[in-house]
């Protein structure tokens, strides 16, 4: 696993852009962690969050349907359709639900990198 380390963020190579289905997500393994990576083809934006849905603690968000709500990117958990903002991780249809951890994503040609904090 190749990684580039800057001062406080470690950027690790997740996959090739072509490994991610258009307008969908995949699950990326990083050490013992699972990170959901999403590609919005229309706006060519990339988002990454924890793969674990906080609702019933299911490793499933990467398999959820993506979309927008008033322009804000979101993903819906396949289990009970809780939706989470991909911009800041907050739950959009249940204010009492925990938020998701989000991660920055960087592209280098056709390579996708996800940034994880060094403190972590």
């Amino acid at each position, binding site marked *: 696993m190749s990684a580039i380390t800057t001062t406080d963020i470690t950027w690790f190579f997740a996959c090739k852009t072509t490994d*991610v289905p258009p307008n969908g997500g995949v*699950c990326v*393994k990083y050490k013992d962690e699972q990170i959901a990576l999403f590609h919005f083809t229309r706006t060519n934006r990339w988002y990454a969050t924890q793969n674990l849905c906080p609702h*019933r603690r299911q*490793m499933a968000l990467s398999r*959820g349907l*993506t979309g*927008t709500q008033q322009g804000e990117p979101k993903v819906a958990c396949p289990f009970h359709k809780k939706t989470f903002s991909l911009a800041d991780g907050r739950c959009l249809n249940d204010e009492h639900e925990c938020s998701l951890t989000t991660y920055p994503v960087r592209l280098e040609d056709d390579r996708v990198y996800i940034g994880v904090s060094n403190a972590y």
Partner: protein
Amino acid sequence: MKIVVIGNGMVGHKFCEKIVDKSGSSAIQLVVFGEEPVQAYDRVHLSAYFSGKTGEELSLAPLDWYRGQNITLHLGDPVQHIDREQKTVHSHRGLTESYDYLIFATGSAAFVPPIPGTDKKGVFLYRTLEDLALMTAYAPQATCGAVIGGGLLGLEAAKALMDLGIPETHVIEFAPRLMPRQIDDKGSDILQTRLQRMGLQVHTSKSTQSILGANAITGLSFADGSTLPADMLVISAGIAPRDELAKQCGLQTGPRGGIVVNGQLQTSDPHIFAIGECALYNGMIYGLVAPGYEMAEVVASRLTAAAEPAKAFTGFDMSTKLKLIGVDVASFGNPFTTPDEGDSIVLEDATKGIYKRINVSKDGQLLLGGILIGDASAYNLLLQTCKNKLALPAEPADLLLGGRSAQPANMELPDDAVICSCENISKAAICKAVEGGHETFDAVKKCTKAATCCGGCAPMVKDIITATMKAQGKYIRNVVCEHFNYSRQELLDLVKVKSLRSFDEVLDHYGHGDGCEICKPVVSSILASLWNDMILAKGNDTAQDSNDRYLANIQKGGTYSIVPRIPGGEITPEKLIVIGQIAAQYHLYTKITGGQRIDLFGAHLSDLPDIWEALINAGFESGHAYGKALRTVKSCVGSTWCRFGLHDSVSFAIQIEERYRGLRAPHKIKSAVSGCIRECAEAQSKDFGIIATEKGWNLYVGGNGGSKPQHAKLLAADLDSATCIRYIDRFLMFYIKTADPLTRTATWLNKLEGGMDYLRNVVVNDSLGIAAELEKEMQQLVDAYKCEWREVVENPELRKRFSHFVNAPEEKDPTVKFETMRAQKRAAEWK
């Protein structure tokens, strides 16, 4: 101008309300005398006193209201004398008031027949709050109650005695039947049986001769020599208009009571009017509240000059529905037509205690009247049909069978149809309120007063609200979500016309933004229903609902289930063994489902293609348990084995399951075929169900299990197999094209304008001329069918998508946990 009103009952109060409404309070001075100690209350619901309503709750307006409207109200102070020369009234307490106009609203009293002993202790009337208070106080010591009078009020009084806990209650009616003015002999028989079952003893053709007992009542003796022990009696033998004061001041009254009035409700003195139950119009006393309210309206309009030319009272429909007694009883229009006036259609079901009679004009065009006992749910619509002279269906008998579709839709009623007859509210007034933004039942009630009195019109008011909102496009136009400003049906037509084949294309043409978890599955379902392309092709995979995307249902813990198709529930021992072997090899939990097939649970995402490969090699195919698609066609064993079987239900079920397998729709579709009417396959609980008959197949549609179960309804009977399939093609395709997202056939049919009759016309009679097209479209889908799991298994690109980690495809999700139970695995509990 000064108006004095004598009587603060229901009609007197309504008159005050109308004057206030029409005059703007200042110009007219109103003075009201009431004999009762409390202000006007809802006499119609007087019996609610026994179910705990207080006098205060029954009151029509608080005292503050009268004060606020500057109405002078003298309660407990009856008018005793009128000087018509001086135009003054004098009250019991010595007040004198002058008037420009005087209104009699003195109502009526209970009629007490001249039987010796009516003054004994334990004998009551049933008219005022005070009567009820006295009854309540006396009842605890009573063991056997009786009511003289088997009319509308008598039955209500009898129910009151039962509610008061009196162990035995009798009703004594002089006429040979109950409610002689409203229902016929047969109806009375049925009603009598039902009342007897409720514990009410009914005696008809009994003439009471005297009331027995020294001081208090101990019994009744009758003209036929018999006696009945009783220690409490309510007299409810009719009403006597309160015309004593009118007589005393020389106004013209009728020979059997009542103050004579003309169409303007004027008495023989033009400055004096009479309204409500004391008024005698055209030789008739109107003993109901609605005509009284209408009289109040006529006089109030005239005195405020609100209606020009002045309205007139022209009589009133006396249709009634008995309330509170626990048996539906209603009569409307002319309940007793003679054979030269019209033909009667009668439905009688003695076992259920139901009797319905409708009288239809000789030419079969109009409803003249009728009687409903045991089930009066159709009362409102029948009454409206009768009053508004609406055309009857070709088979008027349908009106009795209760099929909603046989009854005229509310929106067909003319605008001036009176919906709430108590408050005289027309359909137009209700529609107007809805259009003005009053879109709930409560809001409409508040705004129009409709349904505030007897409440009988409530269902109709609700229907009109819904229909009006629909007509405004508020109900029907169910746009998909923020990304598509179209209903599913509109979108389907657009996608079809433009031949669009992927979610992205549809979004480009008709949507905006990126879509979401709502519109993506809707569009995917539309695409599948139109073209039946492989759902994971053309970049459509991420537009599928999550379960469709992985062609399996996700389970607790993140594993998946596998449901191979087993058409009709028929399976060879060899195939059973293969399922067992595969389940053992991949360590899957197995269960027989409620749909006559086998479900294998607990498969890792990455194992799905391998498992399906093994199943496909053994001759299985996808069961589409994950899709809004055809699920199972259940069957009973049928004529090949069963001694009762009429036809081979298994073969037909397999034929049907294979025809529609893979068919995607707004929601899942289930079916079943039973070999005879014993219905072991439960076909009537399915979206479409088929039952063998001597002559062929009966086809039922619109059934549903789930949380709101509903039986399917018969679409067509005694069909041969080919016709049955043609009708199913048409039915399913019509459903697919017109239903809202995630709407099962039952809900769709419930909401379909015109209901089953309409659907039958489209499917069987081809009323829209689209049957051939529907069949053709279905055939295209049938021809395009391919097992989507086979396509995945055979396509390495698609197979690759079934891995948990994109960067470690060979690894399974390490967080998946199982436990053991009864020698199989199960998902670990939610954390």
